[in-house]
């Protein structure tokens, strides 16, 4: 059996298709995702919003100027980029020229006013509306806080003596406390990489399927020759399973390694457990490949390869791999039929990695890894049964 393992690994590694599906495919898809999500990340990041202010005496004396200036301080959380103008005409010119998103002015009572253009370029609607929203929020927050302070001064002047209480009241968080339910900050893009791991694993099911075809007398002369040899069918099947699993696991390791080291996806310091997940995923995929490989379908390698590719890509659809609409569909299906999360191997693999990344508790990860191992056992048992009982009417 040991020699069958070695031969399975050698033959697989010398087939170009193994390298295409096992190495090139995950690397290419991960790279594609990397570029797609790089744009998505920069879109999500808020660039400072350019705003014009009329630097007259009223502005200089207002406390809103202090607020705006603090929000325009350079750093990761810089919200505004202030353009000081000498007069209103200069500010209006900058606004019309598109150099700024709005104009802040302060009236005699110190209340900020925001001036915006009545029309804007529709092609830039998304960013223009975001900028306007930010400018409105800054102005209205300031107005609300100023109102709050004057209310406190009227109702409980002593409270203003406590600077901490004042700071708390004025802070954006106010009286709420931020609690994180996950061990890392949720990142909407990692789930696509996890779904990709699922697809990569399922595509590697082909390794076992094609190796098993070379063991079937009705599908190849090589299979006939191996079947008349002195090694039992079960031992041959076991050798193919272990050999194919090794190659499949290597493929998963390449995918995980590339996503971690090149794409830079954070696994939250659980890289070792990611490999354990990869091993479980490869096990389920190899079991599936063995099962499909032994199915008595016509067409040999081509039809079995077709079945597996169709299965993997369909499963990937319901794991949400193909973009936001697919992810929404996957969520809808999962809500309507929770069992799908356990029966769809791509979804199961995706969920397993997801839980490893986000949850402190390793239980949900372990349960899903266990489910993949169980899935592999069921497939292997079925394959052994089918293959062991097969006697051929035609060769």
């Amino acid at each position, binding site marked *: 059996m040991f020699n069958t393992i070695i031969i399975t690994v*050698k*033959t697989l590694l010398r087939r170009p298709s193994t390298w295409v599906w096992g190495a090139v495919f995950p690397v290419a898809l991960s790279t594609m995702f990397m570029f797609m999500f790089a744009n998505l990340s920069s879109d999500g990041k808020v660039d400072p919003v350019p705003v014009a202010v009329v630097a007259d005496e009223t502005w200089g004396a207002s406390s809103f100027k202090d607020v705006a200036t603090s929000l325009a301080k350079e750093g990761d959380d810089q919200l505004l980029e202030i353009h000081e103008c000498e007069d209103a005409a200069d500010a209006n010119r900058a606004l019309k020229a598109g150099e700024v998103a709005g104009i802040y002015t302060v009236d005699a009572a110190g209340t900020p006013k925001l001036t915006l253009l009545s029309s804007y370029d529709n092609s830039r609607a998304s960013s223009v509306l975001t900028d306007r929203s930010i400018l409105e929020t800054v102005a209205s927050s300031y107005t609300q806080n100023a109102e709050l302070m004057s209310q406190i001064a009227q109702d409980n002047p002593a409270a203003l003596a406590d600077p901490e209480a004042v700071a708390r009241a004025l802070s954006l968080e106010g009286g709420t406390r931020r609690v994180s339910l996950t061990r890392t900050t949720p990142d909407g893009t990692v789930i696509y990489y996890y779904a990709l791991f699922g697809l990569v694993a399922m595509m590697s099911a082909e390794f076992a399927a094609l190796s098993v075809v070379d063991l079937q007398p009705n599908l190849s002369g*090589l299979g006939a020759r191996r079947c*008349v*040899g*002195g*090694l039992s069918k079960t031992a041959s099947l076991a050798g193919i399973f272990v050999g194919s699993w090794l190659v499949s696991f290597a493929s998963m390791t390449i995918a995980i390694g590339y996503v971690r080291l090149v794409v830079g996806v954070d696994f939250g310091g659980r890289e070792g457990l990611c490999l354990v997940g990869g091993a479980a995923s490869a096990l389920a995929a190899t079991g599936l490949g063995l099962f499909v490989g032994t199915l008595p379908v016509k067409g040999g390698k081509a039809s079995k390869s077709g079945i597996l590719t169709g299965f993997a890509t369909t499963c990937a659809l319901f794991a949400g791999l193909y973009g936001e609409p697919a992810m929404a569909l996957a969520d809808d299906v999962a809500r309507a039929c929770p069992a799908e999360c356990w029966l769809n191997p791509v979804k199961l693999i995706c969920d397993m990695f997801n839980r490893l990344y986000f949850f402190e508790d390793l239980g949900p990860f372990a349960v899903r890894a266990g489910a993949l191992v169980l899935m592999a056992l069921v497939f292997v048992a079925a394959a052994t049964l089918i293959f062991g009982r097969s*006697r*051929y009417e035609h060769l």
Partner: protein
Amino acid sequence: MTDIVHVENLVKRYDDLIALDHFSLSIAPGEIFGLLGPNGSGKTTSINCILQLLAYDKGTIELFGEPMTPARYDLKRRIGVVPQQVAVFDELTVRENIDYFCSLYVNDRKRRRALVDEAIDFVGLGDFTKFRPGKLSGGLARRLNIACGIAHKPELIFFDEPTVAVDPQSRNAILEGICRLRDEGATVVYTSHYMEEVEQICSRIMIMDGGRVLAQGTNDELKRMIQMGERVTVEVGAVEPATVERLRALEHVLGVDLSGGELVCTCETSPHNLVDILDTLRAADVALGRVWSEPPTLNDVFLEITGRELRD
């Protein structure tokens, strides 16, 4: 002595087609047993049934005196198979292929290494051990196919048409190799539709057609089973149809065929065939060229039994 192969009343049907019709076979140790028949006669089917690759409808199969079943790996370990098509891994080298097939029978690596070396020498692939099958010529690939089947030194070896599409030089090397295996103690079952090969190397021959055994025995025994004793061929000039009829009427002449300036007379065994034929031709003033006489071939045996040529 126990037969190495003993098959009784084997029946194999493909729907309405009877591929093997009460096929029986006994092969003694040390024989090279030839299964001769045209394509589709049931040679490969019978081997596949014996090897338990094919399910069969009826009959019993014993190898080495014990019933053969699909799970009798102890018996399978004593058998070697050289299939009709070159059945090896395209991705492995010559040595790796031989080593793999040998490992199906022999676990010990040291012993296997020696056996693989021996098999490589036996088929003369010493210069090609690192080649993959795709880089080998047809003849060399056939030799690899043989090496994969014999490396573990089996007691019983099935050769299923090993010389199909092989050049004459490689064919001779293969046939010589088979005789050497027999000399080393192996029993060989050799299927072919090339009667010359079977005549050359087989100690006993079975002629099959339509899944049935038509005749079996040694080469001489088979030839004695038929009426024909010799074939007389004469190079002739123009021959009148009346002369051909006179030849056909001769006492021991079974048939006359005239084509391309060659007159072929098939005759029963008789000491005067040649004289009678030449006298008849001279009497008709036929110009004569070379004349020769040959004993019957297995093709003649097949022709007389079935009424058609072996290669039809």
